[in-house]
């Protein structure tokens, strides 16, 4: 079945297309919308976006592949992104990665078999003063300790 925005999504799409002095400025906001609705930007989703925006698929592909936050492959329900840049590394980021990998029984970069968690390394998230830290979907989790990590992951595990 071809990708298509829900009614709500279509409304947001129309708003976005109308608000900028140039239509192409809507592309990145629309890709955020699409990722929110479809989970990731598959070839099919990118072709759909190209169609409704009336721009070449290659243009969509170029933009989608340039930006790190756009997922071209599926990610788990909870995308656990641990910063491994300098300040976080000084404060134990590698230990955090190792601990979470062990706890979830996956390697960094992998997704759990139930598709619930993906564990990734990411670059500086602008939270250096509360290192080590991670982003899970839309939320930052800062000042991480093993206890805090346990609490966060256990809550997500029980939430389903």
């Amino acid at each position, binding site marked *: 079945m071809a990708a298509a925005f829900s009614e709500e999504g279509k409304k947001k799409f129309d708003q976005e297309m109308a*608000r*900028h*002095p*140039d239509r*192409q*400025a*809507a*592309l*990145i*906001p629309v*890709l*955020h919308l699409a990722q929110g609705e479809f989970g990731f930007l598959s070839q099919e989703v990118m072709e759909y976006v190209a169609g409704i925006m009336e721009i070449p698929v290659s243009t969509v592909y*170029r*933009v989608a592949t*340039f*930006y*790190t*936050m*756009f997922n071209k492959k599926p990610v788990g329900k909870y995308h656990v992104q641990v910063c*491994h*840049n*300098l*300040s976080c*590394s*000084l*404060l134990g980021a590698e230990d955090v990665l190792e601990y979470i990998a062990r706890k979830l029984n996956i390697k960094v970069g992998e997704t759990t078999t139930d598709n619930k968690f993906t564990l990734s390394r990411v*670059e*500086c*998230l*602008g*939270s*250096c*003063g*509360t*290192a080590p830290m991670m*982003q899970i979907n*839309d*939320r*930052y989790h800062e000042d991480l300790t093993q206890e805090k990590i346990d609490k966060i992951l256990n809550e997500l595990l029980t939430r389903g």
Partner: protein
Amino acid sequence: MEFPRILTNNIDKPDSHRIDVYIKAGGYKSLEKALKGMSRDEVREEVKKANIRGRGGAGFPAGVKWGFIPKDSDKPTYLCCNADEGEPGTFKDRLIMEKDPHLLLEGIALCCYAVDSHLAYIYIRGEFCQQASILEEAIEEARAKNFIGQKILGTDFDLDVIVFRGAGAYVCGEETALIESIEGKAGQPRLKPPFPAIIGLFQGPTVINNVETLSAIPWIIENGGDKYAAIGTEKSTGTKLFSVSGHVNNPGVYEIPMGYPFDKFLAEDLGGMKDGKQLKAVIPGGSSVPVMRVEEMENVNLDYESIADAGSMLGSGGMIIINEETCMVNALRILARFYAHESCGQCTPCREGTGWIAQILERIVGGDGKEGDLKDLGELADGMMGQTVCPLSDAAAMPVKSFLEKYRDEFEYFIKNKRSMVTG
């Protein structure tokens, strides 16, 4: 030391992000003063007198930049507020966006009035989801009270503000890449000239200013540019937000007057070194500035000129404090990995240089360093300076040069002994 809290006056108040709290503290009075009692020229003149320098990292005087906007363009003028905050070690703009978004909005409105712009974009890094929501809410609050929108405060000034989320690209903190990104393209920087003030967003004249820069404008308009210039030093006026991280007891964001002594800052405000360890190195202003040995930071004041004289740069004010137990080879490897990831790929010296440097350092840290590696690193870094469309290449090269210059013994040891001199 007494100085006005220009940027952090409201942040400790409960619900400081709400418009009623902002208004109660005197908020939006500067906008009213400007719209109803000052010409655009007069607003620009105050900002020039203040001599406030761009707080994103380049330190270019904002008043001068605003002056470049042509008055006779047939295209609309735009303001882009740079809220991309991607420089490692930097986390100060988010404080303003989280705790005092109306301060930023008022600064945006004042700038737009001054340069006759009617549409402002806040380009915010995509990962700052919470902060983007807070800004959206604040814009709606401001619109409801007629501080944004049509016929603001009964004058004929119209302004709309759009929060534009990025999608994960450090290079989009560079002003022309930021413009490309808003326009719906990959964030590949443009050659300058032409400068954005002449040809920028949607080909129109464009001002790009950092969050912190714009947030200082309300105070400047309320109190006068001279009063702002009286704070700090002669060439580094006003106050600066330093975001401090690493091995200190009290990491966080601090507003200090320019010229504040580093020794005092570390001992008193930052609470000294964590766990009683010794200070080894300081990166004063974000990962792209030269690293400083502890003895090089002694008696250095925190302003543009003093830090430059000492051999580094104030940059974004993203200060990273490093203790004696840190392997500087590994630290550089981490930074090199970052720049290789973030290079947009457009320019050969950067694309190839960042990648190659990262590979060499990965090998060294993995215990497989070779004799020619340090020579290669030096030559690669030299080949990346001043050779590219944008300064990301220089930003990647400067840590390599400074780490090699100041900690060469650690690198030589690691290559020879296949392990760290510091951490074993």
